[in-house]
């Protein structure tokens, strides 16, 4: 077990020899990740689950830092811990904070043993592949080694803003599609009739769009 841990740690640190601080950080972060992950599953209150998820994600961010992956660590915190979990909380708050989940019953029969089996299979597969396979791989990285003096955020930035400049710019179109698509889909179906609202019958001719827009929220 200790040998495995040591191996994991060696893999986790880029230098190859782990210092005491690296070791300590890894252990603490791993403990945070694992306890957070268990907490997500075990917590009865969905809000606590979400907060446990934040804890897990922070732990993973620390592990990323340990691997000298500053960018992923930052994105992990900003996007996942920041945005995605906020979204989760948003939905949880909607559906009722005080709703306790009864975790004794299984909505899908046999999903727990199946989950355990699948995880075991996956881990075994990974270990076996790492040991057995000798698949050819090409060069390690297109943006250069991460072991250089410049920070890897800078390297990534250089890559995104020079080599992958065009894909980067095109991504903006994707964001426009997301916004326009969301609005188009969230728009109230035109033929559906809402209950007559006493305030709703006078509409200024000059602002039909605004008047249309507000009706969506009328429950």
């Amino acid at each position, binding site marked *: 077990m200790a040998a495995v841990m040591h191996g994991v740690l060696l893999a986790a640190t880029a230098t190859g020899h782990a210092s005491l601080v690296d070791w300590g950080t890894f252990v603490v972060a791993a403990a945070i990740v694992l306890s957070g992950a268990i907490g997500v599953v075990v917590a009865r209150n969905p809000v606590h689950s979400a907060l446990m998820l934040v804890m897990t994600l922070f732990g993973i961010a620390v592990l990323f830092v340990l691997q000298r992956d500053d960018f992923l660590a930052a994105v992990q915190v900003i996007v996942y811990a920041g945005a995605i979990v906020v979204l989760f909380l948003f939905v949880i708050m909607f559906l009722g904070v005080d709703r306790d989940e009864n975790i004794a019953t299984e909505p899908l029969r046999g999903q727990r043993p199946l989950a355990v089996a699948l995880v075991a299979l996956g881990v075994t597969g990974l270990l076996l592949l790492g040991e057995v396979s000798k698949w050819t791989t090409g060069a390690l990285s297109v943006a250069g080694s991460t072991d250089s003096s410049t920070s890897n955020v800078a390297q990534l930035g250089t890559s995104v803003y*020079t080599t992958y400049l065009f*894909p980067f710019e095109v991504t903006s*179109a994707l964001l426009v599609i997301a916004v326009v698509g969301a609005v188009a889909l969230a728009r109230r179906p035109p033929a559906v009739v809402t209950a007559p609202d006493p305030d709703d019958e006078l509409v200024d001719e000059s602002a039909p769009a605004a008047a249309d827009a507000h009706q969506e929220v009328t429950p």
Partner: protein
Amino acid sequence: MSTLLFAAASGAYGAKIHTPHIDYLSILPILIMMGGAVLLVTASSLFRQVMGVGSATFITVGTAIATLVAALFQWDHVVTHGAKVTIAGSIAYDGFSVFIQIVVAIAMLLTALIADGYLKREGIDGPEFHVLAMLSASGAMLMGSANDLIVIFLGLEILSIALYVLAAFNHKRAESGEAALKYFVLGAFSSAVFVYGIALVYGATGSSNLPQIADYLSKNVVASNGVLLAGLALLLVGFGFKIAAVPFHMWSPDVYQGSPSPVTGLMAAIAKAGAFAALLRVFVSSFGTLRADWQPIVWGIAILSLVVGAFAALVQKDIKRMMAYSSINHAGFILLGVQAATVRGVSASLYYLFAYMFMVIGTFAVITVVARDGDSGHQLTDYRGLGKRQPLLALAFAVLLLAQAGAPFTTGFLAKFTVVAAAVDIHSYALAVIAMASAAVAAFFYLRVVVAMYSPVGAVGDLSDLDAGELDAGPISVASPANAPVSVHGQNDAVASLSVLTEGPPTSAVADRMVRVPGLTTVAIGLSVGFTIVFGIIPGPIVDFAHQATLLFT
């Protein structure tokens, strides 16, 4: 504080990063298409009150034409100056990419013309439809000129995500939402598979850039190529989903049936054009050295698509479902050219894509107008007696269907002929025979529609009190009375001629009444039929065009 900042700034100034040269000409059509969409979003946001469907159509048609002109200019430039790779290797600027840009631009133009009448009829307001259609088209164009797996993936996503939303665009039809949900879930899944394939290929070759991958594969003999082949297989699955090839076709009948008809036409035309373009570039050009590995799989997929497409279409009652299976069948034909992986095969595939684009959009234009208000009349019975009621419309539809079946003197015949010839060229005789047999089977269901159109309506008899005036008023748009005047406004002389020529006795059943063909839709149908016949009789120019595009393939 400011001095500190300045000191830090001057310290960091040292190493200037080498920035790539941007060749704007090589991405001009894409820029115009995306720019048009962004312009339309801006205009509609700022002038919301005055922007209706008409002005959105106007901007869209203008953008599509500008894109087409830019692409033709590019063609001229590529022919004289040769192909090249631009913008840090992410864009391939060659005849092949320009060909795809032209196909997609025309598809967008025709769709904008058809969608105008459709949106007005269905009472769908706002510019979102056109914005999403244009962005979707730009995604297809991006896939055509992508030279990097990442760019292909981005193009794929832009193309698909916009199409997911467009599929759900008709709020009034529950099928529309259902189609969008199915398309979205399965499409997102296939995108994930595709991006996994990219990751594996990148791992195996150390690059996501197509020429670099080809370079690596030609210089290195990959001894244990499990990762590479797995990546290749996943890429093929991702592409297979987008082109709706069997066994990745499950989504297509439901989605084709549920989506608004103009969207189905656009989907069939540009998703196929974009995905096939990327498929050809990745497999024929980058993984050409691994031909022996992927050719048998493509062979199998092609046969499955040909057979399943043809036979499943036979039993369909809903014309849009039938067209979905027919498009699966067409995908099988185009795969013939991919499987050949020769210059002849690629040029045959390109020609097929071009011809198919006109045929399928024209077909769905007719389906759009025949479906009437609510976009619901898609049963085969809805076409009964169309030949008597509206002979011109029926004739146009017959021509488009026969072209899809591969009747001589249409582009459809030549398209099928060239791909089969390409297959014969590399001695895939079995494939060629199966393709021809499936074409014969497919002809049967296309003819079924044609026969239905020219057969009399079951029970005529009961002449009702409907007079010509009521007929001219068009379908009763229950849901949107305010739109009726707008639609009438959109009619022009061509429509009038279409209407005048129809003298069928009006009957009581709504299904037997004339359908109104909006002016712009008439133009689109006319263009489709014209192209299909003119270049079917004079095949030279387009065949040469496709061939030349392939020769300029990097």
